[in-house]
């Protein structure tokens, strides 16, 4: 097992190294003046990166690293919310569809999933305010939090930071943040919802076909009992694993949602910077976002390995 973790770590280091090479190539291309040879330049670049000097934004003279991390935190909050919402709904539906495979219910659930997948994210996002207006929901349609509340940046996660303001606003700021997350996370959850239904259904029907389930049935266990004792244990690693391989697609959607809802996340950060000609964000974004996705994939791998050692699916090379 230690061997497995070490291999993951090795993978992390080598992949991260390639990421820094890509970032440096971009940095090199964006900087017109090249005072030193490429290899020396890379070393100086890396030293600066490791020291934390990632550069200063030309727009507002703020350190780029801090801005990038803060926007990443905002996108993460959104994604986590969307994940929780989508999974709580999609897993039960996927299980039902898997059990009644090719039945009427399965048809209905799968159609919903395909519809959810086919809705263009940005379009749903711009329609959302109108939709919520029709149902007379007064949910906020943009931004991170109501500007009335002044929340100091402590962890970067607005949800947590807003809890530090309970002295002045009680829980108002926190509620405001939660309310601001609702519409965008609904939009973002569509994709996760569809994917999870598909994956759960697939895994369930695979597991249900297998011999040991038949054996369990013959022992006289009910479907619910079987689900509880055998199926869950066997399907969750593959669901998590598949979602993990979709992380970067998911992040792409999260950025789009974030841009439309102006929720101060990675997407908006990138877009406004590019529009204002602050291209230095691009290599930074590769390092921050790419690094984050890499790190979380590997952590998920190790976690999966710890919880279910038999399922050692390797998406990445060893």
């Amino acid at each position: 097992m230690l061997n497995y973790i070490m291999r993951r770590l090795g993978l992390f280091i080598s992949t991260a190294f390639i990421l820094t090479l890509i970032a440096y190539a971009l940095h090199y291309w964006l900087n017109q003046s090249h005072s030193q040879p490429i290899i020396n330049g890379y070393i100086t670049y890396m030293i600066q990166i490791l020291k934390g000097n990632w550069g200063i934004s030309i727009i507002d003279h703020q350190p780029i690293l801090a801005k990038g991390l803060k926007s990443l935190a905002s996108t993460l909050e959104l994604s986590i919310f969307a994940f929780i919402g989508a999974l709580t709904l999609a897993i039960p539906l996927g299980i039902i569809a898997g059990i009644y495979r090719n039945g009427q219910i399965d048809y209905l659930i799968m159609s919903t999933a395909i519809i959810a997948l086919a809705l263009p994210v940005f379009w749903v996002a711009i329609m959302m305010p109108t939709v919520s207006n029709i149902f007379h929901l007064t949910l906020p349609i943009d931004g991170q939090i109501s500007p009335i509340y002044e929340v100091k940046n402590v962890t970067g996660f607005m949800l947590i930071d807003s809890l530090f303001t309970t002295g002045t606003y009680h829980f108002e700021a926190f509620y405001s943040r939660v309310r601001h997350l609702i519409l965008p996370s609904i939009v973002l959850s569509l994709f996760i919802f569809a994917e999870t239904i598909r994956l759960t259904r697939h895994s369930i029907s695979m597991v249900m076909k297998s011999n040991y389930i038949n054996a369990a049935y013959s022992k006289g266990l009910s479907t619910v009992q079987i689900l509880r004792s055998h199926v869950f244990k066997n399907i969750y690693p593959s669901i998590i694993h598949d979602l993990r391989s979709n992380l970067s697609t998911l992040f792409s959607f999260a950025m789009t949602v974030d841009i439309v809802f102006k929720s101060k996340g990675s997407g908006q950060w990138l877009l406004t910077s590019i529009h204002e000609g602050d291209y230095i964000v691009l290599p930074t974004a590769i390092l921050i976002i790419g690094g984050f996705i890499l790190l979380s994939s590997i952590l998920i791998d190790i976690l999966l390995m710890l919880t279910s050692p038999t399922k050692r699916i390797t998406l990445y090379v060893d």
Partner: protein
Amino acid sequence: MRIILILIYFFLLTACQGNESTLKHSLVYCPEGNPKLFNPQLVDDVATIDATTNQLYNRLVKRDQMNQKILPDLATHWIQNKNENSITFFLRKNIAFHHTAYFSPTRNFNADDVIFSFNRMLKTTNPFHAICPLSDNYFFNHPFYNSVKTIIKIDDYTVKFLLRSKVQYFLDNLTDNYSIILSKEYAQQLLAKGTPKNIDYFPIGTGPYKFKSFSRNNLIRYQANTKYWQGKPSIDNLIYSVTPQSIQRYAKLLSGKCEVIIYPSPTQIKKISKDKSYRLSMNSTYNIILLAFNTKRTALKNKNVRHILSQVIDKKQINSTIFFNTAEVVNSILTPDSWAFAPNLRRVDDPSKITKKDLALLRHNVSKPLIILAPKKGAEFDPLFKTIAKIIKYNFDKIGVQSKIFILGHIDLHKRLNSGHYDLYLTRLKGNPYHPINMFIPILSCDSKAVEGNSARWCNRKTQKLLNNILTSSRLKQKKQKYHQLQKLIQREYLYLPIVHVLRFDVMQANISGISLNPLTGINFFNVKKQGSH
């Protein structure tokens, strides 16, 4: 899972109630853009002025909005001496500067602050004169540049200005956005700390609100100045939530997230004016949208070509299509309410008058597609520029003139303006009804670069002379005549085609009152009142 649902429900319920006191004493205003900095001495775009002049600062005198009379502000009264051509101000006592996290004043406002504030603009030796990169060349066009000889401190509360210009003219200047009073003590502290630039980014003034924080493209926070000499404002937290898209601002107004917004989408103005839960206010901005002809380009060198192109641009259509008739079609770069406005300028646009000969001339001169340049961001009317450019292109297409539209962000735009690689430049010009000279010099003078305003790249000895004459002449009638000549010159030579004068619209929720607006000094939240909560 059930717990999560219950929790969410609980959040939704309680969140609807809101914290009464925070809501009641906060006001959210949604402007279109970021202020460039927090000092209206240096820049005069709507966003900067709205965020500074009336909120953070006071001036020596101010103008009554109703009868245009000049009223005391930080000066209690003043005496004019016609013979000596001077004016003496007697200053108000016990006026405190803002006490903030970054500055604690040890003394009250006095004559030193007045002298410092004006000398920053007038004297090149002042350490703060050239400190702001945004003010490159700006001070040279500054209306004060030629009007003040020297400023004398008579005692702590008396200041005398010796003038070159007329006293009345100077008093007009003092009511403008750039005549605000800074704290000399704060400036000296900054200088000692080695961070003099902060003076424009962390402002200290005497106004009703004090600066708290600013994050670009996001928020500006102000706090009520509890020691304000005219009384504390009724709002504790004044918040500017920067929202560039008009449709977004409108949606935020409807959802209650913005309580006051600037420029609702022109498509919504009719609807809002009928809705009783909102109030709409309309004001002049002195902002003219104009099209500059690059006179150095081969295609446009010929005056007649510029004439024909001006003829086909349908200004009325632009006004109806884009502004839904909420703007004013103009023929001069000055608005009709200015004293220097030339009333007898003729209308240029009339496509029916174009003859076959004209078309032949166009074909002969315009061989390549014309490049139409327009700014993307940073200007107040950016979503509109693109559509205006499209209409102009459409007008050109009709007479068979090819054109290409380039909508550029400010860095690329500056590059292109500097290189001169454009034919037409769609832009806006901020006018000044009292001192038109500071709009004519940037757009006509040989020394002025395209980025600074001379996007027609016009340089002509006669024009230069005319500009100098205005600067030196002291008689109003003579000046007026010269200004008329300048406006006619612009029309005769087809350097700039003024298209429309944009009016400013602000919408506020019906329970908000007491906001006043002045085209030159911007919005004023001092007297704002908020009744009940919605």
